[in-house]
């Protein structure tokens, strides 16, 4: 085991896979020579050379389109889109082309590619550089969607994503890049579509993703002192979705809460709530409650941004108020 930061785990995960399989290549803006604007890909150019690690122009459509063309012709590309907000710039490539190509040609093409991106708020960059758009990707059939919360999960799930034969959108959280965690040594591959139960409780089940996971854990600790015992589930994958764990953990407590950084409407928690309400209705002891960012763009000022996205305090207060 080694202690790595979340950002170091990105480079470690990419390196592990590029080492293992020479078909894995990596492209993006400022990723090679500069090691990435978030310093997530330092050392890769030096290690693997300019044929396999390439800097591109500011051309999101070309970056993602080229990844698609390369993936369908024998390579396993990792493409970086610097900020997840920029998915809107190349959304045709992702939603119309990559997601649908295999289905439309009845399996003649396979696209083993990964698009990794920096998602989420907390950096005071303003509304167009702080969004959580994992729900956009979840809504398009044909995309797998992953959002790790720890360095170990970054490395393990990135490796799994690269090895997956289908397109995977890998949402790193820019607010977590500096966080530290234990990462297994040696070759480490996790499994897409598996949630993790980080804490077991008996009164409420809290499901969270990425940067909301540490907040959910802190909230659970505070609630414990007030006599409310909460389970915390790190969802990790939106597609494939670990419905088995969600349903089992909700049945144990009878109460479900989601903590979502995406804006309210059609956030990923709405789908979870719908599935649980339909399939575990008779095990519910109360309404399913979603704790989300309100349905507004994110304001820039630190005092504003910090109080728009769900805080530990808001999570605690909501569960305390509704748990009875």
């Amino acid at each position, binding site marked *: 085991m080694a202690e790595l930061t979340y950002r170091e785990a990105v480079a470690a995960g990419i390196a592990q896979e590029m080492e293992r399989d020479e078909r894995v*290549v990596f492209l993006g803006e400022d990723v090679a020579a500069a090691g990435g604007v978030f310093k997530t890909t330092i050392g890769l150019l030096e290690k693997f050379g300019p*044929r*396999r690690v*390439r800097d*591109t*122009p500011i*051309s*999101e*459509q*070309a*970056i*993602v*389109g*080229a*990844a*698609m*063309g*390369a*993936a*369908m*012709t*024998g*390579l396993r*590309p990792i493409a970086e889109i610097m900020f997840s907000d920029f998915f809107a710039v190349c959304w*045709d*490539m992702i939603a*119309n*082309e990559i997601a649908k*190509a*295999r*289905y*439309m*040609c*009845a*399996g*003649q*093409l*396979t696209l*083993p590619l990964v698009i990794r991106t920096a998602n989420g708020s907390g950096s005071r960059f303003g509304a167009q550089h702080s969004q959580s758009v994992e729900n956009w990707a979840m809504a398009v*059939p*044909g995309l797998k969607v992953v959002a790790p919360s720890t360095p170990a999960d970054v490395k393990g799930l990135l490796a799994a994503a690269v090895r997956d*034969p*289908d397109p995977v959108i890998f949402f790193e959280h820019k607010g977590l890049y500096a966080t530290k965690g234990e990462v297994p040594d040696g070759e480490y591959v996790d499994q897409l*579509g598996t949630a993790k139960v980080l804490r077991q409780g008996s009164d409420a089940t809290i499901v969270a993703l990425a940067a909301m996971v540490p907040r959910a854990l802190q909230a659970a600790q505070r609630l414990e002192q007030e006599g409310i015992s909460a389970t915390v589930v790190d969802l990790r994958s939106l*597609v*494939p*979705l*670990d*419905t*088995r764990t969600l349903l089992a953990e909700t049945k144990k407590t009878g109460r479900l809460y989601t903590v979502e950084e995406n804006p309210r409407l059609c956030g990923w928690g709405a789908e979870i709530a719908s*599935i649980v309400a339909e399939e575990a209705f008779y095990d519910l002891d109360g309404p399913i409650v979603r704790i989300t960012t309100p349905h507004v763009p994110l304001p820039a000022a630190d005092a504003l941004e910090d109080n728009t996205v769900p805080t530990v305090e808001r999570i605690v207060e909501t569960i305390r108020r509704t748990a009875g």
Partner: protein
Amino acid sequence: MASDDIDRSTRLALYRSQVEIRLLEKRAYDLFLQNLVKGTSHLSLGQEAVAAGFATAMRPDDYTYCTYRGHSHTLARGAPMVGVLGELMGRRCGLMGGKGGSMHLTSVPHGVMGSYAIVGAHLPVAAGAAWSAQLRGSGQVAVCFFGDGTCNIGAFHEALNFAAVWKLPVIFACENNQYMEYTPIRSVTAVQHPAADRAAAYGLERIIVDGNDADAVYRKARESIEKARGGGGPSLIEAMTYRTSGHSRADPAKYRPPGELEEWTKRDPIALYRARLLELGFDEGDLRAVDSAVQRAVDEATEGAKASPPPALEVISRDLWADGGSSWRN
């Protein structure tokens, strides 16, 4: 006439390819009017020489990327007629089993890596395939076909710049048929030649070719493909041509100025090529034999497609993922 750098069998292949496209597209049109071809269909009548010229110059393992007006390119690469017609008619024998339809014809075994319905989307994808070939050192090239209208969309710019900077083995072939859907291309483009006049912006040569002359297309295609294969980087070629049918469906194309269609019909690529072949000493009987053989093949393919049943409903949930399924949960 240029010196005879094109051998007899190549010329016959060029002729046959154009006739195949012409007769199949005509059949597709008839079937559409009979409501056997559903949805929409974008025909390449009048543009046969471009598809034939390039395909004949390509290696079997080269990649073709084309637009929703892609029946011609799909056929020219050797995809079976019954598969093309079957796909248009939504039948089980279709190239993609009815999953994709007219605008998305794909036949990977023939190098047709998709027909793309969003304008410009496939240009970066073609660049990516070229990058893959370059990295793998396979010598393959990608040829990317698109219309004049595509030259005004953002992805065109990104792909051209990208390919030029990375010196990718991709040929961007613009079929300038004078119309962006229903609008004359000149009225919506800042330059006269939507592709060729922008080549300089990417450090590329300005190349305009007569798109209705199969030999001219073939020569230019061969030259640019060889250049790309040899590491010389991408090319942007503007082929001047004309579509004698409407943009799609049964568009009667009333937006054409009077006399324009007649002018271009005089320059019908197949009529031109026929005349040239006869001039070069080809036997008229041989040419007519090709015509009959192709007609027979189209007729057979038509019957085959008509006899094929609709796809089984269970394919609705198949082939989203590499494992053949579409499950998103456990």
